[in-house]
């Protein structure tokens, strides 16, 4: 697959302009400036144009269908339609870009929230033995349960943390969510273990 070095709209518009000037499809590929060299070389070698078109990596894959009857008839109506379609693509690209940029702001917000909640939950998970033993500690001055690092409580905290991260990532329409959850597991465990060691040093049992 060959990627174009311009947007689909520009490519289509250029080709349509060249066709309008009376060139055929092959020549308009040569004349338009933003066609990658690889395509031109393949054209010069005599490869079938239709094969080449189907190997171009358009962001709208259905675009190659537009060329299906361009070499059939050189009517101006067809060209007019190709041009209108390219305008439509541009409008779509613009509105999608708008969406992208407004999502970007939210993504930044979501990222901050994600990290803050992740650290807080992990900290609470780390300190949880103190909380859960609070009553017994107040009344008897002793901790009843041990400070083992892997308890059911810490596992359920880890699940809550993972879910929270998952939902926030999904809300931001991010990609590669599963991969991003791996550092969460590592960070969570690191914080929990760190806090536990801190408590163990602080409170002699």
């Amino acid at each position: 697959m060959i990627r174009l070095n311009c947007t689909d709209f520009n490519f289509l518009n250029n080709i349509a302009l060249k066709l309008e000037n009376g060139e055929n499809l092959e020549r308009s590929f040569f004349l338009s400036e933003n066609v990658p060299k690889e395509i031109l070389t393949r054209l010069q070698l005599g490869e079938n144009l239709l094969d080449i078109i189907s190997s171009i990596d358009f962001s709208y894959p259905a675009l190659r269908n537009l060329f299906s009857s361009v070499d059939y008839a050189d009517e101006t109506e067809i060209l007019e339609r190709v041009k209108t379609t390219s305008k439509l693509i541009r409008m779509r690209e613009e509105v999608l870009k708008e969406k992208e940029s407004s999502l970007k702001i939210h993504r930044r917000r979501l990222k901050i929230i994600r990290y803050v909640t992740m650290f807080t939950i992990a900290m609470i998970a780390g300190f949880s033995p103190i909380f859960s033993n609070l009553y017994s500690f107040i009344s008897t001055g002793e901790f009843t349960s041990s400070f083992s690092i892997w308890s059911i409580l810490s596992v359920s905290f880890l699940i809550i943390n993972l879910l929270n991260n998952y939902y926030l990532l999904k809300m931001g329409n991010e990609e590669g969510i599963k991969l991003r959850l791996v550092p969460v597991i590592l960070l969570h465990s690191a914080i929990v273990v760190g806090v536990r060691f801190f408590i163990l040093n602080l409170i002699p049992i």
Partner: protein
Amino acid sequence: MKTINYGKSSSKVTQLSIFPKAILYRLALGKVEKHSKFFISEKDYRNIRLIGNSSLLFFVISFVLFHYVTLINVPIALIISLIASISFLFVLSDYIRTKILNRHQKFEETAFLIINSLSINMVATQSFPHSVELLLTKGIKDKYYTKYFQDMLYSLNLGENEDEIINNGGKIFLNKQYETSFQNIKNENAFIESDPEFILYIRKGIKLIEDNIVIFIAVSCLLPLVLSMVLSFLLPSNSPTIFIFPLLYAVFGTLILRFMNNKNIGD
């Protein structure tokens, strides 16, 4: 021409469903079942049935685990295992739901190009079967479109009524504008010159996120924090009852995501 549905087109794979299928699909897919019916493949249905059946298994296992192993009384064990199986069903079926929705969206995004190239082909060839053929020879990347138009060409070649095919064939687009365009493919005005609906749709999506993000953030921040505080204060740290909280959170979070999705696809 009969409308093709990929939910029924592939080979018949029979799989027993313990729950009534209609209720299960309704629960798992919700609004999507109606909205993207065409895009639900037999494999999706099979997976949903699998999830439904295994959620019952999940229920039994968690009940046995909680009641006999940790020795809590029957009602609490029942409640916990019920929550466990519901969250299992919800979370996993949401995964399938999103996959179906993505498939549908990708399909709709290219619809206008398909119609426009068809209408350009019509201008060039003046024959509907020939234009469909041209459309197919260029190779449509989307396998749903390919299959759809192949079937259409097949029934055209069999000599079925062309006007009828054109009339019914537009149903695939699920968008009134595209549907009428396709139905008018033989006339000059089939060409799509602007699609305000797409722009409105995207804008609506942006607005939806902007409006609901505060609610979502509040819920997704406060809920896990409050849950974890309650957890650590009230419960002994090694009772499996604790697992009820992450499970509850999973149900809540999935429901919120689902709510957003529904708002996005609804009118």
